[in-house]
Structures are given as C-alpha cells and as structure tokens.
C-alpha cells in the first residue's frame, strides 16, 4: 500500500492502529514510513524454493527492528508479512505475537469470537470473550 500510495496511507494505518490499541500502546519502529525496511516475505520470497536461508537472513533486519521496540505484539498488514514475521519471531526466538489488524479491530469492538484468536497471546486470548458467546 505504502509502496503504491505513499506515506499518507501509512499515516492512515497508524490512525486506525492507535484508535484500536490506544495511543499509549503504540510503538513505531525505527526507521519507519518510507524509510522502513521490508520484512522479506513479499516479492515471492516466501515461495522461492531454495532461498529459505537467505529469506531469514534478509528478515533479520526486520526482526532486530521489532525487538528494539520491546513490543509484545507486531501488527502485519498482509499475508506475506504475517507469515514471514511470524516465522522470524519463532526462528530468532523473539516470540512476540504477530497479528493481523482485523483481529485487533474486532477485538477492540468486542466482537472477536473464540475461534478467531489463533494469533493472540495468553494476555489477550480471553479478553472480552464473555460478551461474545452465550
């Protein structure tokens, strides 16, 4: 999105994220916006048979950025990013949670069902469940 539409789109994503998790819970990684680094999941890298080791080496830059924030959750904007960052979290041992934005939007609106919490950590996996199910 940012690649095609520029930093304004990235700013809108930050507005949504802050609205959902609260301004005080949002930590921007450094560098960010157009100076940010690609995670290494895109461009077919995840599907590039024979290049798995290179993909993780590429992704170490992103993993280091995420670790430097100290955040326990990383929000990823697309499927490739989600797969890659989730793998980086396991591979490099950071063990931060990696979530889609739709999960946090639905959670914040009090409508995230029990089966829709695959990527939430123990701290949030029961959050607000009582109001959803009978």
């Amino acid at each position, binding site marked *: 999105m940012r*690649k095609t539409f520029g930093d304004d789109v990235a700013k809108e994503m930050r507005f949504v994220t802050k609205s959902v998790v609260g301004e005080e819970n949002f930590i921007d990684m450094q560098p960010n916006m*157009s*100076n*940010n*680094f*690609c995670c*290494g*999941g*895109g*461009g*077919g*890298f*995840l*599907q*590039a*048979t*024979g*290049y798995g080791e*290179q*993909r993780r*080496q*590429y*992704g*170490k*830059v*992103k993993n280091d950025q995420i670790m430097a924030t100290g955040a326990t959750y990383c929000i990823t904007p*697309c*499927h490739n990013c989600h797969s890659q960052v989730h793998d980086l979290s396991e591979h490099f041992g950071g063990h931060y949670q990696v979530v*889609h934005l*739709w*999960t946090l*939007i*639905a959670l914040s*609106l009090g*409508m*995230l*069902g*029990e*089966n*829709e919490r*695959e990527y939430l950590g123990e701290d949030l996996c029961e959050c607000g469940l009582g109001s*959803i*199910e*009978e």
Partner: protein
Amino acid sequence: MAEAALKIGGGPRQTTFMDKVMEVLPEGGNLNLCLTCGACSSGCPATGLEGMDPRKFLRMAALGLDEEITKTGWVWCCTQCRRCVHACPMNIDIPRLVYNCRAAWPREERPKGIRGSCDAALNTEGNSAMGANSEDFQFVVEDVLEEVREDQPQFKDMQVPINKHGAMYFLNQNSREPVTEPDEMVPLWKILHTAGADWTYGTIGWAAENYCMFLSDDEAWEKIVRAKAKAVDDLGCEYWLNTE
C-alpha cells in the same frame, strides 16, 4: 564474474541487457544515472545475500556484465520493496531491472514454489495460487458462516454474499484462509457487517494473490488480472477490494 580485467572502450559499444530494459521502462528507469553513492545498498536488507547488493547489481548491468546479472540468484532475494528507489538521489528503478532479470530466466528454472503458485492460479477459475476450487471455497465460507451465526448471537443475521450482482464492493480473499485457517476470515466479515457495507465475494477470480507477477511472467500476470477485473465487471460491482 569475469576472470580477466574488463577492457573499457575500443570498438563500437555493444547493446547491453540494461539498454534493452531501459527501452521498455518509463524514463528508462533512470538506469544510466547512477552516481555510485551506495545509498541503495546501505538500506537494503538484501545487501550481501548471494554476494550481491543493489549498487553492485546496477554497476554490473552498466558495465554490460549481462550473463552475471541475468543468472544471479540475488534477483529472487530482492522483494522489489522499492526502498532503494526512495533512497536514491537519482530515482533509479533498480527493482524494475530486477524484475526484468527474473524474466530472463528460463521459466522452468525459476523457483519452483513461485512457478507452482502461478500455475495453480492459471488452472483454477478462482485464480487461487493454492489451487483451491471455487466449490470448496463457497462450501467453507458457508460452513464457517453457519457456525458463527449459531454460536455468536450478535451475528445471527450476518450475511456473506457470494456472486451478489450489483454489490458496491467485490472483495477478494487470500486463499490461505479458506484453505488453512477458515476462522481467520470471520473478523473481516464482522467489520464489513458492522459497517453496513454492501459487498460480495465471487466464485470467479476470488483469490487475492497473484504470484505470476513475482514470477515475472507478464503474459500470465496480465491474464489473471484481466480475469479478476472481468469478474468484478460481470457482477456489476462498483469497487474491487483487493486485500493483497
């Protein structure tokens, strides 16, 4: 790499691979404007992989080392994220050069996973890179929806339209959810439902992904984009929402 030192000059200049790529890019991709500063490489996560980096790659192209740049596996390590273009004072489009070098590989020698994803999309009416057929997609969507409506009273009236003519939004769906984790489709449905959006899935061209682009297979890439765009038009939808 060349074994002997390169001899510059002497005799007519030969047309290089880079020259040919410049002919098909707007402004020639500015490929011949490199100042050799290295801003591209300093911020590229692919720097060092396969013994290559963006500046080295471009310099080799400029020197006419065509065989090397069209054979290095580094082109499959560049995600074409375009950070190098952003950093470049001359706005040089290295990712487009990478794209064209990928295309120079014989199709059967390009990475199997990307090729297989492209071929699967070409072989299914939904253009699914995971090869999911449309009947299965529809079944999974309806099955998951039924469960949500039963278990979660606040969504007992939620609709997930499929092939709804005249809906405002045609929404693509990445194959990964219906194939491997169907419950992950639900949060987005809920958001659309709560927002009151008039949307639909389709059974034709429903998959959001298009690996033919990453395979640098122009013909297949175009074919898939056109099939998906036609599916949106055929349902008379005003907007095409592609989540990838």
